[in-house]
């Protein structure tokens, strides 16, 4: 009995001195839900950021990245939406990836506009890519092909497909889409191999392919072009199309208390400004585009109304 009391008191003492006090946030590990598979772009970004975020939280706790792939990101979004808004479950989301099914009226278990948006991490635009040896060099060339241009894309509800249809319609480009490619890597290969004429691919993803000279750009959308030969949405006369981009945002469940929300927001913004994190971003060709909670929520609302306008293309 004496031994038991001794053991219990040692355990008690250990618990008392090692753990953070229980009334402050955070006093236990925080889970970041990643709605995609381990190893993907989102996953790696979240894992890398999580390490640096730990540095800027008031208590020493771990941030645990949890992969929850499924239903094109909807499973992860539902999980975060249903979690307790205590700050210990947050998620990294692809916008408009999780917004589009909501606008299309797909049955989903979350509401993008109700999530507690915390911060914006990065913004990525699209490049309209063609094979290096293609005669196409601009949107004008695409229009003058004498036949509808053939694009490659993933599934018809994917962000790349929707970017393709909205931009082509707005620019009055006659087009056809070969769907079914599994991920951007595959349709970039499709462009190189000549299955298709062109494709919309994330600007950061295509950088190594541009560098190696396998592909070239016909135009960019959602990012500003600094090359006079490559037009962006403004040069093309449709500045509204700059809304077409992929944004990585962090959010928690609806109804998160203000103090918890702001602790997390500050830690994220500080991590995004961390020198070591920036060095990693540089080395891997990743980008950062920090925005606070208020601006993030505004961006979410703007994005919702932008895609609402194009609802008819989203079927």
């Amino acid at each position, binding site marked *: 009995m004496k031994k038991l009391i001794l053991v219990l008191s040692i355990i008690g003492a250990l618990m008392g001195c090692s753990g953070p006090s229980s009334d402050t946030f955070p006093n236990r590990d925080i889970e970041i839900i990643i709605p995609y*598979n*381990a*190893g*993907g*772009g989102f*996953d*790696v970004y979240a*894992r*890398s950021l999580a*390490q640096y975020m730990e540095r800027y939280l008031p208590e020493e706790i771990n941030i645990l*990245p949890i*992969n*929850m*792939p*499924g*239903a*094109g990101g*909807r*499973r992860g979004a*539902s999980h975060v939406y249903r979690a307790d808004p205590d700050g210990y479950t947050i998620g990294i989301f692809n916008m408009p990836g999780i917004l589009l099914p909501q606008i299309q009226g797909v*049955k989903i*278990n979350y509401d993008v506009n109700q999530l507690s948006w915390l911060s914006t991490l990065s913004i990525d635009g699209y490049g309209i890519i063609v094979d290096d040896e293609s005669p196409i060099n601009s949107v004008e060339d695409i229009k003058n092909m004498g036949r509808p241009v*053939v694009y490659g894309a*993933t*599934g*018809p*509800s994917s962000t790349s497909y929707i970017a393709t249809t909205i931009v082509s319609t707005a620019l009055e480009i006659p087009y*056809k889409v*070969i*769907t*079914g*490619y*599994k991920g951007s*890597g*595959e349709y*970039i*290969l*499709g462009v*190189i*191999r000549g*299955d*298709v004429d062109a494709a919309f691919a994330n600007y950061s993803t295509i*950088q*190594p*392919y541009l*560098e*190696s000279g*396998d592909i070239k750009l016909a135009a960019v959308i959602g990012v500003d072009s600094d090359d006079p030969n490559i037009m962006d949405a403004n040069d093309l006369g449709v500045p509204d199309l700059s809304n077409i981009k992929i944004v990585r945002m962090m959010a928690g469940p609806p109804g998160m208390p203000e103090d918890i929300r702001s602790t997390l927001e500050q830690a994220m913004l500080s991590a995004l400004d961390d020198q070591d994190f920036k*060095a*990693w971003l540089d*080395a*891997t*060709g990743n980008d950062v585009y920090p925005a606070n909670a208020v601006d993030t929520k505004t961006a979410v609302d703007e994005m919702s109304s932008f895609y609402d306008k194009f609802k008819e293309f989203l079927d």
Partner: protein
Amino acid sequence: MIDLLLNALSDIASVKTILLLVLGVMFGLVFGVIPGLGGTTALAILMPLTFGMTAIDAFAMSGGIMGAVAMGGAISAILLNTPGTAPNAATTLDGYPLAKQGRAAEAIGAAATASPLGGLFGVITLLMVLPVAKQLVLLFGPPEFFLLAVFGLVTIALSDSTNLLRGLVSAGVGLMLAFVGYDTVTGGERFTYGSDYLFDGIPLVPALVGLFGVTEMIHLSITGGTVAGDASAVRIHGVMKGIKATLKNWRIVIRGSLTGTIIGSIPGVGGTVATFIAYSTTKRADADPESFGTGRIEGVIAPESANNAKDSGALLPTIAFGIPGSAEMAVFLGILVLHGMQPGPTMLLNNEREIYVLIIALTLSAVFSAIIGIALVKWLAMITLVRGQILAPLVIAVSLVGTYAINSRPGDVVIAAILGMVGYLMLRFNYPRLPLVIALVLGETAERGFLQSMMISQGSWGIFISSVTSIIMVLLILITLGWSFIPGILKSRRAAKAKSD
């Protein structure tokens, strides 16, 4: 190239790096043995641990894992008729009958020899084709994917001539299961009944755990007894016999590893199909194909030599274009990015050193895991003497937990349980299970390749003979079909002639 390999070898040759590689091998073996878990899960779990390591250490450990899972998976395939990882499914066909005859040690010895040899041939092939890696990857587009899937399906259809109709029924069910979920071509949802789980389709690994692991354990519980029917027949000293058999059948090893490298390099098709095709070509080339499935050692050698070679194949698209050739490679690319590298077509220029380290680590790992496997054979073979009442609940529990652990989705466990019962009925009524698995893997590739080809060619069938690759594939399909039917036709003609005479 030799100096690059030597450099990589000297990078690895530090006590710490070798220890991490061996740690990876241990981890890979355990994850390979447990049905459901595999290289992808092992890599994903160890990924956060690599934060604190140098890039070289991280790659040595990853290579250790990837090279070892095949050996681990072969052990469960042989001893329990449960493929530890998906590509080991073909090994069950003759490996398990061998275990039943008490020749488990021989089968494991053969697998442990075929694995590293296959891995080595795979690496040699990879190094030889590396300069033309880009051109090779570009040979395969939607029409070629479709033809490859058809080739795979034709191979299954004809794999068991005594059981042709039942095999086709099984493959048909597999195709039906393959079409469940979101269709990336049309955007429609099929047979999902509004469920988010079914949106992603029927996952392969839980299906395999059910069809093989759960099924076998149900069977064992019902029949009672042990895996090896006769305890006195269990020979634990057959290892050398297995090793010798593999060395004697070096042709099978080379053919298997070539098959593994080529098919392993095609994203989305990968190991399961590669090992199966290696198995069935070996069977067809044999003088006595009918005896396969009853415990032929060649039936273990062929798939296992393809199994380690497929990793080299999967490296091809990864190196050439930064596109992962397998799920394991996808996680490996993630580890690369975490260590500040950028995957893509420039990888061979920028990350040459790391790639060679991975190649060396893969090769060393195959050798280490084989040595560990051989060293443990004695104790492992004892599993076949454990009574079903004890073995079945253990294996079922471990398999189902493994299935859940992949993605923590309860639905995966339900799929494993349902297919376990379906598998038992198939076993009971003598329907082969592997055609279902292969059709499940290939169904989507076949459909997607066909629809995409038709969209690209605007409905012209000519696209399927528009490239040299596709013409070769069409010929392969025709030869495979002819090979199986013509001898039969000739025989019946001769018989008819004899009758009329």
